[in-house]
């Protein structure tokens, strides 16, 4: 496999005619781990959804390329087969479809027709990956995410990532709702996948996760843009000092994007009397 190259160039996107991404630029090369940090509501999760092709978002400008191929031109499933993977913050629950059936369909979708993965090989592979993520083997036959706890869902996302071996892994708030043990297990799962053939984009608003998964680059997102980039030391400074110093430095008052203006009750008005 060749070294991955993933580029986002001046990406702009909106939802319901509200612009959320206002020109995002990132380049990720094989073997690199990039972290995107920032307070809530600054466009981080939107970036992840837009890369994957969530139907609610409309791309209004810019480009995304994976190994020179135009990602924005692809359907969601084509993006996945091209090598993109998004570990979601809120994975869907799907009744009646077992975890095993689902993963086998996903693996077979990457293979030529008539060349399906053998059942034995698949089960062995799934069992061994589940073991390393300390997942109960019975989760194989549970309906996809149905009745899973928050932590179980996150582990299941990492399990899928490990099975599908993507070229670019995007982790959207994978640490939210995880206790320390689960965080360690999930991080070990991610670290085990680091390779020159693979890039990572990790979205989080806690520095905590980055103690477990060492980033090479840290980007801070505000108002739908990357406003500051640096090395791992930037994450440490954010941990110690918060985000206010960046806002001050850049003259940002409200770091959020796409927020409705709050309705202010005009002065000198009185609630109607009934």
């Amino acid at each position, binding site marked *: 496999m060749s070294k991955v190259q993933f580029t986002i160039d001046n990406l702009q996107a909106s939802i319901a005619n509200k612009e959320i991404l206002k020109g995002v630029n990132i380049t990720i090369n094989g073997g690199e781990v990039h972290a995107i940090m920032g307070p809530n509501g600054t466009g981080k999760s939107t970036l992840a959804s837009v890369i*994957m*092709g*969530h*139907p609610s978002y409309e791309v209004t400008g810019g480009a995304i390329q994976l190994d020179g191929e135009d990602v924005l031109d692809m*359907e*969601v*499933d084509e*993006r*996945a*087969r091209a090598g993109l*993977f*998004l570990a*979601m913050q809120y*994975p*869907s629950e*799907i*009744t*009646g*479809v077992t975890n095993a*059936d*689902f*993963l086998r*369909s*996903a693996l077979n*979708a*990457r293979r030529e027709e008539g060349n399906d993965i053998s059942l034995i090989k698949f089960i062995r592979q799934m069992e061994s990956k589940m073991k390393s993520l300390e997942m109960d083997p019975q989760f194989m036959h549970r*309906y*996809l995410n149905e009745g899973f706890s928050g932590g179980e869902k996150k582990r299941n996302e990492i399990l*899928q990532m490990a099975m*599908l071996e993507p070229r670019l892994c995007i982790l959207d708030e994978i640490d939210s709702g995880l206790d320390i043990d689960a965080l360690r297990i999930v991080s070990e799962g991610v670290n085990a996948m680091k390779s020159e053939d693979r890039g990572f984009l990790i979205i989080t608003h806690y520095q905590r996760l980055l103690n477990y998964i060492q980033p090479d680059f840290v980007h801070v997102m505000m108002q739908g843009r990357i406003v500051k980039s640096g090395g791992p030391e930037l994450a440490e400074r954010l941990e110690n000092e918060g985000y206010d110093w960046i806002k001050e430095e850049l003259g940002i008052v409200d770091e959020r994007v796409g927020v409705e203006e709050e309705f202010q009750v005009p002065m000198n008005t009185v609630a109607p009397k009934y």
Partner: protein
Amino acid sequence: MTTTTILPVGAAYIEAVSAATKEPAWLTNVRLEALELAGRLELPKYEKTRVDKWNISQYGQYNTEAAVASFDQLPESVKGLIKTEDASNLIVQRNASVVFSQLSEELAQQGVIFKDLHVAATEHAELVQKHLFSVIKKDENLVTALHAAAFTGGIFLYVPKNVQVEVPLQALFMHDQEDAAFSPHVLIVAEANSSVTYVDHSANTTSTSAIVRNIAIEVVVQAGAKVTVASVNDLAANVTELTFRRAEVAQDGQVNWIIGEMNAGNSATDTTSILRGNGSESDAKVICVGSNDQKLSITTQAIHWGKNTNSDMVTRAAMRDEATAIINGVTKIEKGATYANGEQTERVLMLSPKARGDANPMLLIDEDEVKAGHAASVGQVNENQLYYLMSRGISREQAQKLIIYGFLAPIVTAIPIAALEAQLSEVVERKLGQ
């Protein structure tokens, strides 16, 4: 104003059936009484469905099919439909008559009866006469009366008290002659503290001219007994199905229904549990897939008479093309049925803009000290679920299939015989994949 109803069957037809099956005189008399009632009765009321506009007058020709002595002598077309590892407890009805019937020696010695209803009417006259049409009565409406008058073939299953039948007893109803009559009656009697699982499968192997199948399954569940009935119906578009399935459950008894309504033609089916005794329970799981322009009226009911009675009903329907389904769930709690608990859920998945599905939950409660609940929904394949599956590389088409199949799976997997479960999965896949 009086109207003269022209009945689809007459006295001559009935006498011919009686003579051909050599059934006892009492049964012929029951048929003739029923025929007379049919002349006066109306169609049952089907919510929002004009069953009177359907083809409900072709009951077909009565012919006797030759019986076979062993499983191996069954035609290949029939054998192909029997997906089972074990045919030791099996009845096969071909068109209007039972052609093969087998019960293991072990069960026969315990007093279990599993045979052609016509034969049982002679050999076990007292038992059959006592229970036949005791749960689904011939004087209820035009459909039940015509059924009692004109039923052809069917099964008597009797389990003596305290006998636990561990293996499922199976029946195959198959239609392979285009205008043959095909309206069996299934009578199941489970005596006190017994248990049994009955599984049937209905199918066509050849094309058929327009025909009505008016089938009834009546189940007598005596005190403390437990009966499970699983039924997979996979009949061709020309077959109009009118079905009543009903169980009357005595104290601490239990009935479970697992029904696959996979017919291609118009079908009006009613699956009812009458919880007569205190502490009795029922569970009904129904799935249906509607395709082309077929019309379906699928009703499940739980009628609570006894105290501390429990019922649960789940219906899931996936509707394609221009198919229409009216899904009714009726939980009725009668006065005096204190501490009854009735739950029901109807879910309809619409797969095409021209398909139609109505979910009508009805709670009719005449007692204060009860619990009852319902949930109903009609919707399309969830876009977020599609996105999630596609984000793993699964094509839109395949993702849709997985979601639809998953929607029906919790009921398909409840089928008590693995081979029949596989068959139902196959039918579901075929109906969804056309």
